[in-house]
């Protein structure tokens, strides 16, 4: 007797919804084992991770703030991945967007520039992110270079460029030599939604992005083109959809959203440009995109869930001295299970009793 995977005639819709839940369940089980090995009470640890952050308003706001860049980036990445274009460099596009937007903030610092500053920063960040993402896209389309490698390598270029700027030309003269720009002026800052709170306008923009992506993918011919190019390239060409054009488009949109997320983060929660503005949002967003099934609403939920693990991880560190790296382990295990459970959408488990063993008996 053995366990075999059997192909399903048709994709199972129920499993597609249930599979992330199974993955979360398996991850929790694994984490319980891990916490036990670390000598921590697993129930208290899980409480600190998943329950405590949901119990006070400040943490809830913080979850939304964390989820904002994750969701925005993941939406863009999901478009790429649906079209079979593998943008791994959202982190770099995020940083370049932050740098480009900050340029306006730095240049208008202390002047009486008006309300145009923030919108201009957002637009410039999106454009810069898009242009930065177009580098790997064009290399792929024109020269066949692997976009996975080129987009990833450009992350380090962006990272070091930002580092250079804040240590050199843009360093705050009154900043005690810390590598950071001066605090942005109020006109260069993303407004808060609640006075004295943490929630800012960026979260609203993220929700609009989710809605727009849902309409694009579900209702428009352009979104259909993106999906069919990824799902069946030859059929897509037969349908008249141009794969190269869509690779360029999805990379540009994805870069723009990452860039926008970058400037919102800098001009919002952070308030100035400095190294380390991203705890790996661009990479975590890859996980968010897959955990959310490359579906806009799914991504919204997945983004909030991963933000919860960030916040919960901090609380667990404070309350139970659980290292912050455990959060990363947790996220890694989660992605592993999500991808593993995905095979259940196209396959099902089946017990088989091979006739060979029976035959061997008298053969």
């Amino acid at each position, binding site marked *: 007797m053995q366990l075999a995977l059997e192909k399903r005639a048709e*994709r199972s819709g129920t499993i597609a919804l249930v599979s992330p839940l199974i993955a979360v369940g398996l991850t929790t089980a694994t984490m319980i084992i891990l916490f036990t090995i670390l000598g921590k009470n697993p129930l208290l640890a899980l409480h600190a991770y998943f329950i405590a952050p949901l119990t006070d308003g400040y943490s809830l706001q913080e979850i939304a703030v964390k989820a904002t860049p994750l969701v925005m980036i993941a939406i863009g990445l999901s478009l790429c991945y649906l079209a079979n274009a593998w943008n791994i460099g959202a982190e770099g596009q995020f940083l370049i967007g932050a740098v480009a937007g900050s340029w306006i903030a730095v240049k208008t610092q202390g002047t009486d520039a008006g309300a145009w500053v923030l919108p201009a920063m957002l637009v410039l960040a999106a454009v810069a992110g898009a242009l930065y993402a177009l580098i790997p896209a064009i290399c792929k389309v024109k020269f066949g270079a692997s976009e996975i490698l080129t987009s990833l390598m450009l992350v380090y270029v962006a990272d070091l460029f930002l580092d250079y700027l804040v240590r050199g030309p843009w360093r705050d003269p009154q900043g005690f030599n810390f590598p950071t720009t001066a605090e942005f002026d109020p006109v260069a800052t993303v407004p808060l939604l609640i006075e004295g709170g943490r929630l800012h306008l960026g979260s609203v923009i993220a929700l609009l992005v989710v809605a727009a992506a849902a309409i694009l993918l579900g209702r428009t011919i352009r979104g259909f083109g993106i999906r069919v190019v990824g*799902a*069946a390239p030859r*059929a897509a060409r*037969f349908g*008249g959809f141009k794969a190269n054009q869509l690779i360029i488009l999805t990379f540009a949109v994805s870069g723009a959203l990452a860039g926008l997320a970058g400037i919102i983060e800098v001009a919002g929660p952070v308030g100035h440009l400095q190294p380390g503005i991203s705890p790996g949002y661009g990479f975590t967003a890859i996980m968010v995109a897959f955990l959310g099934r490359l579906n806009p609403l799914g991504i919204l939920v997945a983004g909030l869930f991963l933000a919860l693990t960030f916040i919960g991880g901090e609380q667990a560190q404070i309350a139970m001295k659980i290292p912050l790296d455990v959060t990363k382990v947790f996220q890694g295990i989660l992605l592993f299970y999500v991808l593993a459970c995905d095979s259940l959408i196209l396959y099902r488990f089946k017990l088989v009793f*091979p*006739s060979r063993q029976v035959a061997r008996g008298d*053969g």
Partner: protein
Amino acid sequence: MQAHQRTLDPMSNGQHSGDSPLLRTIGLTKRYGGFLANDSIDVDIWPREIHALLGENGAGKSTLVKAIYGLIQPSAGEIRWQGQRIVLSGPSEARSLGIGMVFQHFSLFDNLTVAENVALGLDGKESFKDMSARLEQVSKTYGLPLDPHREVWQLSVGERQRIEIVRALMQDPKFLILDEPTAVLTPQEADQLFIVLERLKAEGRAILYISHKLEEVKRLCDTATILRGGRKVETCNPRLETAASLARMMVGGEIKEVKAASRRKTTVPRLVVDDLSLAPAEAHGVRLEHISFELKGGEIFGIAGVAGNGQDELFAALSGERLSKDPGTVLIEGIAAGHLSITQRRKLGAAFVPEERLGHGTAPRMKLSENALLTGHAASGMVHHGFIHTAATLKAVDRATEAFDVRKAKRDPEAASLSGGNLQKFIVGREILRAPAVLVVSQPTWGVDAGAAAVIRQALLDLATAGAAVLVTSQDLDELAEIADRIAVMFHGRLSAPLATSGATREKLGLLMGGSSLEPKEAAHAVGA
């Protein structure tokens, strides 16, 4: 005891040389999930016998031979070889017993020589030199000429098949399985193959011959086992049957005759191809050379030819999947379209049905409504200002379902969940219901059951009667004879002058398919590679 000595007295069952069957399956069953691909099949194969395995696509022929060749394990039942029960661990064990197989799809490396390919397929330990010598000897003995030092990509399909047959014969099999060997051959090449098979039979070997060409089976085979829906229907002597009675057993009922309207009126030229030449897109692809033809409304134009002679390239050039630099090479409804995209060509009134159903004609894992949109978005009111009109796409599915009797489990399933015949009916329906002026269709009934094939051929005839120009590429000469008004043959990227179907005998077409020209002048230059 040679082939020629075989008097054509019809053998009745049971009158076999030897006293026990060489191979026998008893209650052989193969289950895939809930689906019974083979349901308790009993077949006896005797030495010195050419045994036909007949059946439609999906009848279970492939499953049965895969079990006999050790590629899959039966779920129940047994296989006996010379009276002994055997359980095969894999094809190499089958080969060591003396079972050989020639697959329909060749497994050859294009960039290796004939001898290298044969060496790769053998389990033996003999040196490459000895093997090459034996290869030459076997190919000479059986009249299967092969140059061991040529690279496979330079060879014709018939020559490639010879490699597979010689490779199988070099293991001196007692029992040889051939899966639809004539599907890729010209009629003349098929005749040569039959001589070889008769000779193998005379040597005392058994042959299992899978086919759905009934005339061929009547001519060649001593016994026929007919499968339908995974079960054995009958074992009979095909020479005592008529093609119609065999077909009835295969299909399980009468096949609808295809009727052409009495006289179709041809009108203006709707598709014109003028001196179309196109370099291949990939290595070892076929270069299209100076292709010209004119197709009037109301006419069905057939293109015959052995696969791989440029039919795929021609389809891509006509559909606009590949563009031509010169707009004037393709004219649709009188408009130069060589440079236009496939969407623009559809807007001009053209429709296309490619050979490959899954992955080319449809996106397998998308719903039928989305696959209706795939080709319908250009000009069917399915898209308004960039937004998809979902109700319209579903309606297109319903219309195709009704008009072409597409059988499916629910209203809008994924394309991959449909059977080959039903999916093909959907695809053909999807295009025909757009009422195209020009329809270009490639292998319309390839791998489709007889019932669906009749529906599709009738639909093509009706479309032409309604005034459309229909271009059909097919390897099935019977199909072209049935529906086409004129037939031309593709060979090495060139298209022969069209023949009226009435004058296009199998012999003439066969000669053209093999590269000889009816007008000797042009023939000398026909081989481009």
